[in-house]
């Protein structure tokens, strides 16, 4: 009985596990290895296997004597040699952080409202939240480009209003503001959905009890609803923060001359500069930074729980 149980577990977890090993774990290891190699002249990496000049047969070119010609720490050295890379990391974290916070502030009331609506309307409202996914991501970004452009009605109306109060016209397109507003727009549903899934399950009796015990509206939210919704907040924050951090299309399309994020730099290494090893270094650094942040968040979360106990 126990044995067949174990087999069942493997049968169920096996396919996704295998999928992740083949398409996530192995490529990640290849990337980590690539970070220590030299780039090839036409993209890719300097080959480790090639034809032997004497025999013409393919063989491993690396030997105990010449491994320094094939493996190097220089790519990591480059990352730390110029502060611009770290600065770009910090800027990207800043962008992603603001995006996450803005999404949370916008999504929380909305998710709460949907969760407290009559049951028959909830599915429809959730459908409306995910409706933007029916059209292509790039088309939605292009729509924003029209809205934010100086000839767009939104910008013209805004500048009219600003003109009345005596402020000069503002340029919305090609700015930090444009990048953040589009990042928030693109990621908002990813914050609403986990929050809704969490808030919907809250037991209303808890709030009634709090009210009976004399808690004010704010206290009921801060002492009951908010702590209970934290798993949803964390899930939503992760779903928004991580993709926003690696985004390159949005800064490319609506960002100004200094709007690039770390994703643009990684893309540049692979596609324009044909420097895969340095691109790998940047990707590894990004992964490590995210892991570090997740670890810190987990520690803070655990600390909070201990306090509560």
């Amino acid at each position, binding site marked *: 009985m126990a044995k067949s149980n174990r087999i069942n577990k493997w049968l169920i977890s096996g396919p996704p596990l295998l999928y992740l090993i083949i398409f996530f774990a192995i490529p990640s290891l290849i990337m980590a290895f690539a970070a220590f190699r030299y780039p090839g002249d036409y993209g890719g990496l300097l080959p480790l296997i090639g034809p032997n000049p004497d025999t013409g047969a393919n063989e491993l070119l690396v030997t105990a004597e010449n491994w320094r010609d094939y493996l190097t720490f220089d790519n990591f050295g480059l990352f730390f040699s110029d502060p611009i890379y770290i600065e770009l990391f910090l800027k990207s974290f800043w962008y992603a952080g603001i995006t996450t916070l803005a999404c949370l502030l916008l999504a929380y009331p909305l998710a709460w409202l949907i969760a407290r609506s009559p049951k028959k309307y909830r599915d429809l409202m959730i459908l409306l939240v995910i409706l933007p996914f029916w059209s292509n991501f790039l088309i939605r970004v292009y729509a924003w480009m029209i809205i934010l452009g100086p000839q767009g009605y939104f910008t013209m109306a805004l500048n009219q209003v600003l003109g009345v109060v005596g402020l000069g016209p503002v340029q919305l397109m090609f700015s930090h503001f444009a990048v953040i507003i589009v990042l928030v727009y693109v990621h908002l549903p990813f914050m609403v959905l986990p929050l809704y899934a969490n808030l919907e399950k809250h037991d209303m009796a808890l709030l009634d009890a709090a009210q009976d015990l004399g808690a004010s509206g704010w206290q009921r939210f801060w002492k009951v609803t908010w702590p209970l919704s934290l798993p949803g907040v964390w899930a939503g924050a992760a779903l928004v923060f991580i993709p926003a951090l690696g985004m390159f299309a949005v800064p490319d399309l609506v960002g100004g001359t*200094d709007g690039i994020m770390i994703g643009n*730099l990684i893309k*540049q290494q692979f596609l*324009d500069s044909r420097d895969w090893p340095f691109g790998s270094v940047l990707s590894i650094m990004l992964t490590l930074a995210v892991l570090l942040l997740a670890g810190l968040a987990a520690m803070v979360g655990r600390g909070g729980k201990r306090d509560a106990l």
Partner: protein
Amino acid sequence: MKKFLLALLLAAGTANAEDVLHLYNWNNYITPETVKNFEASCKCRVVQDYYGAMEEMLAKLSAGAKGYDVVVPTGFAVQPLVKQGLVQPLDKSKLPNIKNLNPSFMNSAFDKGNQYSVPYAFTTTLVGYNDKKIKELGIDPSSWAIIFDPAVLAKIKGKVTVLDDSREVFAAALMYNGFSANSTKPEELKKAQETILKAKPFWAAFNGQSYIKELTLGNIWVAHGYSNDMFQANTDAKAAKRPFGIAYSLQKEGNTLSLDNMMVLKSAPRPDLAAKFINFMLDGKNSAQLTNAIGSGNPNAASQAFVKPEVKAISAVFPSADNMKKLQQLNALEGKALRDLGRMWTQVKTAK
């Protein structure tokens, strides 16, 4: 009888399946009419796949993508394809129309003797601008100063975009400083980088994707870009009945010329159809169709009679002999030079 019909169907099916030319080309770089005409003449079908950037095409083919017959790379991508053994030499005996080509576009540095490639079409990289605004402001668009000189830029701050392409932006800055567009000398590149950094605060964005639209809408007044895109922008502005047009002309310090070439891949399933296609495109009339449609430059001498007069009048696409001398093709950069440029570009992109 039924069996016979079935056999016939199968035979027809296989014949169809075999006669397919796979063309790997830039987006919007052959007219549907030309494709239809070629299909009629070769009794075959053309299947197209597209790329939006040279590095994208190179990356895909270097990674081992197969199944394409003809590819249309820009000059600087020809050597990488040849050196990696991805293309095959052309059999000139199958290309009698090669005689139509203008000799000044033959024998380029990237393929001496045109062993592997023949010219297809070209664009020049230049400045396109809102003719009304630039005239009002009294700015001279015939110099690269329009995108690099802070004194000029002060009048058009936030209304300028430059290409999001390290090679093209550095080439323009190098030429503005009087250097070769292909310079790899560190001190000259440094100078060009300084020019770029001084001008950058006045630019709205690095934009290679949507400057046609931005120009047409009047959001941007000056854009560094490709001649055929400016042709498109002007056509769009006219169609939308804008009160302005998009004008463009070559810069006096010189411009880059991107010559696109037809090449046959080594892995081509149908080299015979590839040769037929190349010869077809070297015909003056067929070649002129693209020029008339998108305003691309035409290296084909026999096509000139078929090009519409209004397109022929565009000096950026049909340069005078004098201007022709100032056009420079970008070389293929070898690994290290490309990476060094990439690093300077990153400094430009991240500078405040």
